[in-house]
Every structure is written in structure tokens, then in C-alpha cells.
């Protein structure tokens, strides 16, 4: 006779837990922020492969062909679209002054800056901010949750993965009705973003001993700083500071 379903479920859960615990024990110095390191390293390898054969060559081509003013205009154009989302997120974080300044930026750059191609507002002293929903959730006290490395979008904590989903739902570029136009816009933005990271490639390649963990640790430090708007409380307690 088969044991009742609930009993089997309990047995199954026990076995899974034991497997997970023994899995933990085999990996030395596991980072508590990264419990799914095996999965993440696999995804990282996938992304590195995609990047080498497709994304990076396209970004390099774009970087070589497009003159600087064009690249600047492309960056400004998508930056201007994002500024509206930044304004909303600053408002959600209770930073009314920043939100107002961001709205001013969008109004000025969309008109005087010819559809966002020129960042006139920065010249006028309206500082560019950059906020997304993940930061807003962080400000509201939502913890990071486990770290993930996703195909295409790269590193995200669990909270920032949800943040990214909300960002994408809002994203005016993804809401363009004309599908070929929408896809082209998304591709150009992605290429421009990748091209902007080209100079960092060599630096990371030479500086990192384990590229996966170097990027993970840098990402987590960067997010911490972003949520505190560049002023995170010091992590260095006497305990890990003494030497």
C-alpha cells in the first residue's frame, strides 16, 4: 500500500532538504547572498558565450561606426525616456524635490532638447538622477533576497528582479505599438548600453580572479550604494576592519 500523499510529500521534502544541506557543505566559503550559485554560474556562462559570439561584436561595430555625437544623442534619447520613470520613483521614495527636477528635465529635454537628443537640462544645472523600481522597493525596506544571474539581463537580486519586471511593464519603449519599430528601439538601446561597457571589459578581465564573483560582489556593493543614494552606512565594523 502506498503511503498517503502528505507522508510522501514530507519524505520528499526531507530528502530535498538533506540534499540541499549536503550540497551546501561541499562548497567552501559559499556567499550567503548567493544560494543558487550553481544555477547562476551556468547562466553566467551562457551569457558570456552569447556576449562573445553575438552581443559584443555588434556593440563593437556600433561603437566603431557611429560617430560620437550620434552615440551621445542615442544615449540622451533613451535617458530622457527613462527620466520620466525616475521622476515617478523619486516621488514614490518621498523625494519630491528630485521628482520635480526630473519632470523639469523631461519637459526641457523633450522640447528644447529636440525629443531628448540633447541633454539641455543638465547644462542648465538640473542633475540627472537614475532611479528604478528596485531601488524604490529597497528604500521601502524590502530586503535583497537571493542573488540571481539571468540570461540577457544579467545580475539581479530577487527584489531587483521584481523591480525589473515592473520597470519593463512601465517602459514606454516596450509599449510602442508598431512591433518592428519597438524591436528596433529595444535592440538599439541594448546595443548602446553594451557599447558603453566596452571600456570596462578589459579592466574587469585583468582585475578579476574569478569574473563571476567579482561581478556579483561589485553588483551587490553598487546596489547598496544606489539605494542609499551614494551614501551607504559603513560596512566596516571593528570586527572586519582590524589588522
Amino acid at each position, binding site marked *: 500500500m502506498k503511503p498517503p500523499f502528505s507522508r510522501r510529500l514530507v519524505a520528499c521534502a526531507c530528502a530535498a532538504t538533506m540534499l540541499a544541506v549536503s550540497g551546501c557543505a561541499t562548497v*567552501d566559503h559559499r556567499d550567503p547572498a548567493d544560494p543558487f550559485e550553481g544555477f547562476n554560474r551556468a547562466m553566467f556562462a551562457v551569457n558570456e558565450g552569447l556576449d562573445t559570439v553575438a552581443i559584443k561584436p555588434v556593440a563593437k561595430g556600433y561603437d566603431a561606426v557611429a560617430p*560620437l555625437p550620434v552615440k551621445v544623442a542615442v544615449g540622451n534619447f533613451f535617458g530622457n525616456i527613462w527620466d520620466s520613470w525616475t521622476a515617478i520613483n523619486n516621488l514614490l521614495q518621498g523625494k519630491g524635490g528630485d521628482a520635480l527636477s526630473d519632470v523639469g528635465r523631461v519637459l526641457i529635454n523633450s522640447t528644447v532638447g529636440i525629443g531628448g537628443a540633447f541633454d539641455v537640462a543638465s547644462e542648465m544645472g538640473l542633475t540627472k538622477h537614475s532611479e528604478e523600481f528596485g531601488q524604490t522597493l529597497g528604500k521601502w525596506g524590502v530586503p535583497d533576497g537571493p542573488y540571481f544571474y539571468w540570461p540577457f539581463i544579467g545580475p539581479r537580486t530577487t527584489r531587483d528582479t521584481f523591480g525589473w519586471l515592473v520597470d519593463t511593464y512601465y517602459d514606454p519603449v516596450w509599449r510602442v505599438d508598431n512591433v518592428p519599430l519597438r524591436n528596433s528601439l529595444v535592440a538599439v538601446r541594448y546595443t548602446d548600453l553594451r557599447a558603453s561597457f566596452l571600456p570596462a571589459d578589459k*579592466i574587469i578581465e*585583468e582585475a578579476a580572479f574569478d569574473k563571476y564573483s567579482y561581478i556579483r*560582489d561589485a553588483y551587490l556593493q*553598487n546596489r547598496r550604494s544606489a539605494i542609499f543614494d551614494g551614501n551607504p552606512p559603513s560596512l566596516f565594523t571593528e570586527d572586519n576592519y*582590524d*589588522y
Partner: protein
Amino acid sequence: MKYLLAWLFGVFSLLGSAVALERSPDALVQQVTDDVLTIVRQDKDIQSGDTSKALRLVETKVLPYFDFQRMTALAVGRNWSKATPEQKQRLSEEFKNLLVRTYSNALTSYKDQTISYRPSNFEAADTEVVVKTEVKQPGGKPIPLNYALEKQGGEWKVYDVIVSGVSLVTNYRGSFSREVHSSGIDGLIQMLGDRNKQLASSSK
């Protein structure tokens, strides 16, 4: 008259050294940054990726203002106290070479960025400060670039460089402590040494 000149000269040199001693940390960062970027802007070799030339520039203009012993201690973390003085010396030397290379690589990718200095508020009595700067690049958002400095006998020394909230020093903590855990302090020295040798031979 001769004596007067000599006396004036003496006073000026005294004043000069006093000014150098009293130089505020933000003034120091600004001066070193301006010096280095003035050279990079005129140097076509560095702009086209000549790392060895950038290395020499960093070694002469930037190195004297960095405290590599403290940087290494920060990167190694609690294992630092387990290292012998000789190991500490060798670790610092290897880590210094690696960081100088990272810094030089960053310089070779310099294009049209400008640096702005953000107001820093610190007291005259402070011995540890963070100087905040921003790298502005056309078409992109400004990148915060901060320097942590410590006052040592009247002079300020940089012990951490923080790019977009990422400390170039503490970002090594995880991989360094893993290496010490598996192969000890000497293993870490070896790992750094191997990397430096490999980088030095590939850039020739």
C-alpha cells in the same frame, strides 16, 4: 641685500612646505586628477591604449599618494593579522602592481569625460575623509568616483577608491579569503604574483 634675498627665499620655502603640509584632502585629489588628466589629454599613445605608458604615468604621479599597505590590509580582511611582516610586504607589493594596472587601464579608456568635484564636508580635526568626485560623460549618467583618505603625519594618503559605490579594494575580499582558506597566505601571494607576471608579459 643678499641677506635679504636669502632670508626671503628661506621664508618662501618654509611657507611652501607649510602649504604642502596643510593641503586639504580635496585639494590634493583635485590637483593629482588635474595633473594626470592634463597629460592623458595630450598623450595620443595612452588614448590609443598604450598601457605601459599609462603605467609609468600612474607610478610617478599617483603612486606617492596611495597607502598600499592599508589597501592590502582592507582587501585581505581578517586574515591580514595572520600574515608575517614579510608576507604583508610581499602581499602589498603584488596587490599594488595589480591596482596600478587596473588604474592605468582605466586611464587608457579615457575619452571625453570631465571630472567635477562635489562639495565635501569635513572638519579640520578629521583624520579620515571621503572626497567625492563625479565623472561626467556625454550621453551617459555621471559616475560617482570617491576616494577615501587617511591623514598620516600631516600628509593625506588614499586607501580606497570607490567607483559607483563599488570599492576597488574590498571587492577582492571574497576571492582573497577563499584563496587564503584553500592555500594559505602564501597561496594568495602566489595567485597575485602569477596574475601580475601574466599581465606584464601580455602587454609587451
